[in-house]
């Protein structure tokens, strides 16, 4: 099931990104639902897009991060754990590049969810952030109980994370960077281990930010 939804989202991404070349707007990913509304006595059809469900996690400075903390920012989310030996270091490196590009930009945030709450305590996350060179909370490393984080990955970001004793590190997770807009809708998914896709994310973030500039 998780594979199916993943495939669908990937397919959607491919289809949309192919149209994307001549328009300057990013696609809105995820499921959508038409609803009928009555405006001025006329029935019109409106669309409800999939959004990130509410959450409440603690970051490396022990501050609660929820939807309200992200108001008026677009953000990039991913899943990792500090002792991860496989894809995380390269993801952190790629994310670091993007973070440095948008450092200080109040409209851009980064959320890295730890999927190993057993070991990744708040002080451990703080240490990881500091060593990575992240001194503020524009990039927040999030601690939450296991199930909420895993459900968030699955239902919120169309990614996955779970324990697996058979692989090095003991956890597996997708290496995707998910781009979320100010309305909490998913606007892009990028392989965080792939340089080209990370570059695309960087370009798409500019496009997304420009969308908001245009509507202001």
């Amino acid at each position, binding site marked *: 099931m998780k594979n199916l939804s993943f495939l669908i989202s990937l397919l959607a991404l491919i289809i949309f990104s192919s149209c994307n070349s001549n328009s300057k707007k990013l696609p809105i990913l995820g499921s959508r639902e038409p609803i009928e509304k009555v405006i001025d006595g006329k029935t019109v059809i409106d669309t409800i897009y999939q959004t990130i469900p509410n959450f409440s996690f603690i970051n490396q400075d022990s501050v609660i991060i929820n939807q309200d903390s992200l108001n008026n920012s677009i953000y990039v989310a991913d899943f990792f754990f500090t002792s991860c030996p496989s894809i995380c*270091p390269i993801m952190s490196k790629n994310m670091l590049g993007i973070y440095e590009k948008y450092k200080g930009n109040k409209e851009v945030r980064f959320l890295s969810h730890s999927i190993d709450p057993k070991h990744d305590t708040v002080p451990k996350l703080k240490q990881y952030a500091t060593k990575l060179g992240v001194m503020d909370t524009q990039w927040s490393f999030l601690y939450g109980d296991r199930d909420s984080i895993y459900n968030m990955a699955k239902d919120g970001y169309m990614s996955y994370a779970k324990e697996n004793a058979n692989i090095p*590190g003991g956890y597996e997770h997708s290496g995707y960077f998910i781009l979320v807009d100010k309305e909490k809708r998913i606007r892009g998914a990028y392989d965080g281990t792939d340089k080209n896709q990370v570059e695309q994310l960087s370009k798409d973030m500019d496009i997304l930010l420009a969308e908001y500039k245009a509507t202001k």
Partner: protein
Amino acid sequence: MRKLILLVVFFTIAIMTIISACGDENSIKYQRYYADGSQLYKVHCGNCHMDDGKGLAALIPPLTDTTYLRKNREKLACFIVYGLNDTIVVNNIEYQGQMLAEKHLAAIDLAKVLTYITNSYGNQQGIYDVTEVEAYLRNCN
């Protein structure tokens, strides 16, 4: 008779090949080690130490500290096989993270990947022979 001629031709070619290769036998061995080592590096090391050997900030040490590699030449194979859980100082930065053990790597693969590492990223320390690795492995802590 025909067999004899074939045999003579075979041996002549074999001897000529050996003679012509003799001059740079070491350099051929080095190049083979280095090339195989670069592939092994991608599979076993690159995820953390990165393709450019620069590591990750203060989390994962770079492989560019020639002095460190030279000083610890005898321990490098042990580090890879048994992992590392110590605080080490590389390029004047303290690193405390854990390096996972790669117990499945054979001595010849260790020799190749170490040859690659100690001759890339600004290092130039020559071949890291398999016999050398085998000797060091016997003295791991």
